[in-house]
């Protein structure tokens, strides 16, 4: 093994290596890795806390207590003077809550002359029973005089009690639900009359001051209108602006200034866009307040810088060799961009657009300023009609005190989060689908 001997001889003649702190270097690397893991762990903990708090409060919002009972549409109560043929207002203004109350009184076997008891009974069912029964009668007046089985919404307090959200150890007088009502609830649920079912109203109804009848349906439609308009406006404008700036515009002071301004605009607080929309679209251009169109225009302005920055980055990332290849073949600049550069940049553009849209979907502040923080009960038929948006609806519910609104706030947040997750998944899928290697 003379081969091994030679280096040892050589080493002894060489001056020893300087101590460069190998151990310290490794220790520093280990420390850095630890910091990184701690940072990620912290992030995960907070995310988990957020999700836990939202889901634990909100999952009950997807269930709603209902009372299914036979209701007698008695002509004496709806139309005591038999004038409905001549006066259509009779059916509109009839005393429908009385029908529900009578039905419950009958089902529970309460003495109808016991006024206190009867008042407690009528508090079991939601005040929305009025509109529900009225709509039934208006749709088909022939049911007057018959008995129909109707599923009525339980009152919000009863709903909360049924979900076990009301603390029964509190003294009866300072509780929203008294012991008698609790007894009736038990009686009704044993009879299969009082049930918990999936809360479709949460997805279909509009704003209501009664939590059991309030839903995000109208706000959802408003948000949908806005997303569509933002997409239709911001994507083409943003992509066209980016292509021009990136590929055609001469590089001079003016374009530098524009670039700096676009980057700055992306960081402008969204409420400033709301003020801009208020003064330009509503005060100057005279567009309607609370309209999804105005909201969408404001959100378009807000989303454009995001889309432009993402698109320019995506265009920049296309290797110059692809451009050179196309130009070298005699393709015009326009052909080069539209045949080769844009398809390669598409995944990046789509991701940027969807992230911009998701940002716009969750935006509340600018919408407050243009009057979209409105109590909108009916579905907006067009983007010009008053509407509201999902995050604004959440904001409004968060201001309400009732226990039932608390769970609905969280429920709506869950829906919004799911929506955002779906959009981001879409972005990832589109990216995967279009991504090509070169």
């Amino acid at each position: 093994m003379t081969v091994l001997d030679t280096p040892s001889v050589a080493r002894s003649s060489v001056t020893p290596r300087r101590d460069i702190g190998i151990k310290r270097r490794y220790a520093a690397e280990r420390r850095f890795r630890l910091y990184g893991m701690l940072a990620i762990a912290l992030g995960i903990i907070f995310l988990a806390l957020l999700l836990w708090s939202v889901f634990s409060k909100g999952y009950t919002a997807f269930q709603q207590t209902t009372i299914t009972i036979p209701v007698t549409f008695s002509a004496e109560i709806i139309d005591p003077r038999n004038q409905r043929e001549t006066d259509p207002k009779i059916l509109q203004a009839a005393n429908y809550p009385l029908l529900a109350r009578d039905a419950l009184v009958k089902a529970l076997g309460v003495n109808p002359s016991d006024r206190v008891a009867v008042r407690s009974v009528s508090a079991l069912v939601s005040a929305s029973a009025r509109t529900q029964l009225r709509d039934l009668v208006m749709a088909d007046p022939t049911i007057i005089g018959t008995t129909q089985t109707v599923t009525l919404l339980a009152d919000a307090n009863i709903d909360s009690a049924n979900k076990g959200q009301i603390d029964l150890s509190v003294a009866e007088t300072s509780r929203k639900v008294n012991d008698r009502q609790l007894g009736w609830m038990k009686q009704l649920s044993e009879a299969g009359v009082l049930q918990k079912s999936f809360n479709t109203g949460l997805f279909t109804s509009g704003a209501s001051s009664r939590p059991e009848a309030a839903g995000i349906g109208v706000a959802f439609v408003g948000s949908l209108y806005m997303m569509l308009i933002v997409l239709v406006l911001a994507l083409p404008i943003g992509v066209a602006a980016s292509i021009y700036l990136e590929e055609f515009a001469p590089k001079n002071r003016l374009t530098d200034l524009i670039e700096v301004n676009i980057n700055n605009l992306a960081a402008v607080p969204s409420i400033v866009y709301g003020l801009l929309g208020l003064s330009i679209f509503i005060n100057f251009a005279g567009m309607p307040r609370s309209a999804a169109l105005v909201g969408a225009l404001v959100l378009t302005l807000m989303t454009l810088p995001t889309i432009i920055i993402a698109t320019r980055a995506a265009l920049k990332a296309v290797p110059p060799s692809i451009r050179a290849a196309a130009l070298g073949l005699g393709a015009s600049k326009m052909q080069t961009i539209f045949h080769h550069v844009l398809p390669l940049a598409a995944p990046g553009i789509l991701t940027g657009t969807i992230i911009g849209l998701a940002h716009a979907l969750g935006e509340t502040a600018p919408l407050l300023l243009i009057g979209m923080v409105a109590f909108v009960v009916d579905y907006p038929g067009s983007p010009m009609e008053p509407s509201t948006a999902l995050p604004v609806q959440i904001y409004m519910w968060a201001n309400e005190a009732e226990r039932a609104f608390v769970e609905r706030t969280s429920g709506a947040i869950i829906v919004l989060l799911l929506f955002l997750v779906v959009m981001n998944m879409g972005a990832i899928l589109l990216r995967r689908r279009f991504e090509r290697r070169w």
Partner: protein
Amino acid sequence: MNIITDTALEKALDAKMNTTPLKMIGKDVSVYYGDKRALFDVNLNVRQNTVTALIGPSGCGKSTFLRCLNRMNDTIDHCRVTGLITLDEQNIYDSAIDVVELRARVGMVFQKPNPFPKSIYENVAYGPRIHGLARTKSEMDQIVESSLQKAGLFNEVKDRLNEPGTGLSGGQQQRLCIARAVAVSPEVILMDEPCSALDPIATARVEELIHELRANYTIVIVTHSMQQAARVSQRTAMFHMGNLVEENDTDKMFTNPDDQRTQDYIMGRFG
């Protein structure tokens, strides 16, 4: 490489070369990148059906000159070209010349193989499509096949024309790029160090191809490899610091150059 010592033979060769028509003429060509001047009054002619090699150390302006020949320098901001460059006695910087048409006549192959991220077929068919060279699908199929054949690639890829061009090996990709350039029937093909990213076997394949292409096309090739210039070209031009040092028959250039700098460069004293 046969060494020519006989002056009579030399003269005869010169005479023969001089009868070859000039395809492109460069007269007092200067290029400026902003304030920086990259080329100084270069006078260099390109002969028809000849391979002209441009050699010289890095940054000497050979690629810049090459890119003037199909106006690829137009795509660079602040780049200005002065002087006269003609293609078949027509000034290519004339406003009457359309750059799209010029680039169809003067094709280009780049240093790094740069196939489009599309199928092999689409890579070749793209040029003929934008120039309207094929009216029917079968005409296009024919152009694609003959182009791939000219590039010596057809037999290797005929069963996978619909697979991505980026999936081929480096040498195959470069031949695909040559097929792509050939597909638009150019008159001149410019090659900017076409083999610098390839291994020796792929390089040999491309050099062989350059030999074959010479029959139908005029070729200008920029290369860093002196051996390659000697192997593939008939004429060689030596650039140094933006100046054309010497332009000569390749055989003469590598045996008995007129200029001392050429001699030094070829002997490996600088560069």
